[in-house]
């Protein structure tokens, strides 16, 4: 793979990376100054800016490697993702020391995960050097691998009775320094399921696109082709329910419907899907008390003064009400990075980063952030639209749908418009497995955008 001359260099990508790097520097300077607690401005020392320099160097190195490996890939995707990751590192740096108990190295851990994520992105690009069509042949392998990973953590929970009441059972402690590295295998399962759905729907597109049997006047999907799809979906949903990750079950269901519609073009499936979802949601509501708790909390009025509501506000609804207060104290312009008090919200670095960003960057910052996610989704769907085979279109569409639906669910949860789930905000929430899985998705999208382009 030789360097094909200066006109193949990814200039656009370099141009677009300029502003994110400036953003990192400015944010870092601001954090250092806020930390210094002095009255006069003094130039920050070089070693306090090390995280910023590390991130910028990592992004530039990845950019250069992308030029070498994949010059024709989409040039807008990586800068968007870079800026979002920078947000993540800045928030981790800012929130870490202020937590209770303080986690001073939260920022450097997030930075390390970012480096790992970039590495995984490049590895994904490398592994698909011969094209991505071979992935569709191994769809059952991928699905089995994902289910196995998640199944292991589920079995571990039930055999060792570890913490039955923990908010999620979706954890796997990989052997590593400092008591093991926590890892969420469900993040990888998402990708495996999308691969399976994409390959299956691509192969059976015609049959799914034509008619099926009719139940009186209501058309019913062709059940024989639907069998493996429903089986895989059912297994995934059961796993997620077992893991107490209902947000992920919702996410997978939404992606499934999206890809089915993309592949067949029929609203019929979406209709049946919504009906099935309503039935499933009702069952889960009746079965699980924590689902009932989360749903009632959405309806709470945080300003209420009567005793019964106040008890709920100080109990299960504490996190959500604190989140709303944080968002509110941000106002339009925000309190400024490092100058607010987002740590009043429990678990702010994982579940409630959005509220922290809203408090410190204000309405303007949050709208810009949502704009960034919209651009990310736009770019992903554009890659899907330009793809040359059905499998690539469906794969790119499904992977982008992950980002779109996931972001919507968690932002709605932060804003008390929807029950809170444990889904991470892509690239910004503190957490390694989410970052790595998202960068693998980006690697796949970049590879698809470079396949068969003239």
């Amino acid at each position, binding site marked *: 793979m030789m360097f094909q001359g200066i006109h193949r260099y990814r200039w656009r990508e370099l141009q677009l990376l300029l502003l994110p790097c400036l*953003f990192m520097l400015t944010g870092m300077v601001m954090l250092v100054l806020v930390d210094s607690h002095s009255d006069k401005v003094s130039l920050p020392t070089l070693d306090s800016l090390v995280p910023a320099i590390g991130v910028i160097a990592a992004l530039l190195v990845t950019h250069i490697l992308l030029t070498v490996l994949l010059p024709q890939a989409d040039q807008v995707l990586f800068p968007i993702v870079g800026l979002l990751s920078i947000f993540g590192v800045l928030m981790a740096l800012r929130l870490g020391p202020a937590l209770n108990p303080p986690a001073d190295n939260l920022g450097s851990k997030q930075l390390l995960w970012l480096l790992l994520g970039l590495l995984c992105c490049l590895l994904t690009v490398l592994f698909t050097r011969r094209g991505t069509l071979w992935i569709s042949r191994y769809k059952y392998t991928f699905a089995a691998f994902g289910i196995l990973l998640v199944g292991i953590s589920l079995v571990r929970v039930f055999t060792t009775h570890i913490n039955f009441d923990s908010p999620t059972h979706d954890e796997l402690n990989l052997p590593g320094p400092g008591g093991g590295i926590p890892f969420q295998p469900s993040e990888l399962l998402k990708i495996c399921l999308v691969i399976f759905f994409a390959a299956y729907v691509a192969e059976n597109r015609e049959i799914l696109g034509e008619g099926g049997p009719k139940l009186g006047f209501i058309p019913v999907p062709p059940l024989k082709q639907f069998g493996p799809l429903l089986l895989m979906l059912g297994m995934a949903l059961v796993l997620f329910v077992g893991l107490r990750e209902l947000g992920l079950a919702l996410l997978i269901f939404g992606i499934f419907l999206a890809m089915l519609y993309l592949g067949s073009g029929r609203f019929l499936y979406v209709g049946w899907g919504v009906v099935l979802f309503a039935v499933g949601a009702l069952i889960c509501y009746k079965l699980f008390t924590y689902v009932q708790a989360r749903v009632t909390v959405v309806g709470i009025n945080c300003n209420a003064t009567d005793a019964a509501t106040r008890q709920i506000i100080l109990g299960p609804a504490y996190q959500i009400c604190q989140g709303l207060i944080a968002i509110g104290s941000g106002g339009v312009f925000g309190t400024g990075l490092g100058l607010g008090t987002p740590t009043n919200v429990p678990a702010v670095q994982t579940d409630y980063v959005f509220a922290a960003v809203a408090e410190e960057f204000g309405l303007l910052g949050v709208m810009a952030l949502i704009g960034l996610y919209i651009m990310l989704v736009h770019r992903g769907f554009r890659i899907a639209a330009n793809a040359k085979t059905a499998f690539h279109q469906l794969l790119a569409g499904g992977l982008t749908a992950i980002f779109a639906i996931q972001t919507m669910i968690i932002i709605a949860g932060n804003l008390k418009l929807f029950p809170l789930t444990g889904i991470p905000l892509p690239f910004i929430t503190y957490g390694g497995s989410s970052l790595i899985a998202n960068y693998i998705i980006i690697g796949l999208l970049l590879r698809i955008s470079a396949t*068969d382009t003239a």
Partner: protein
Amino acid sequence: MNLQLDQFLFILRIVLVALIYLFLIQLIFVVRRDLVRMSSGSGAARGGTTAHKGLGYLVVVKPGPMPLRPGHRIDIEPVTTIGRGPTNTVVLEDSRISSEHARITYHDRQWWVEDMGSRNKTFLNGTQVPAGQGVPARPGDLLVLGPVDGVVTFKFGV
């Protein structure tokens, strides 16, 4: 610098949010140029697909592995070539389709289908189309490209 810390931080706050918006504006410019280029390119190539040229079109019946949907319409030019090569009017990317597979021409107020010496043959309504000789085709006829069950199937329409 004799700036008070508060003032400097205020400036930094504005700069921080402004940077994100500048980035978004930069993105919009790039994307806009992209969309303009895409629409002008595809517009010239398709030349207005919604208006009927009076010659007719092919309706996709069975798309096979192509990223086409059943029911998709492809306009027929006076000379339409179908094959795997990029110089064809209708490009079908599959190894079972020859680089120059079939040709549809319109003269004598009639469509003619001829096979271009393809490996897996062309079939019109089940009968094999001989290479180099035009066979008349009418609206409703089924054009099948490839081995017996066909890789791609089209239907003629007016």
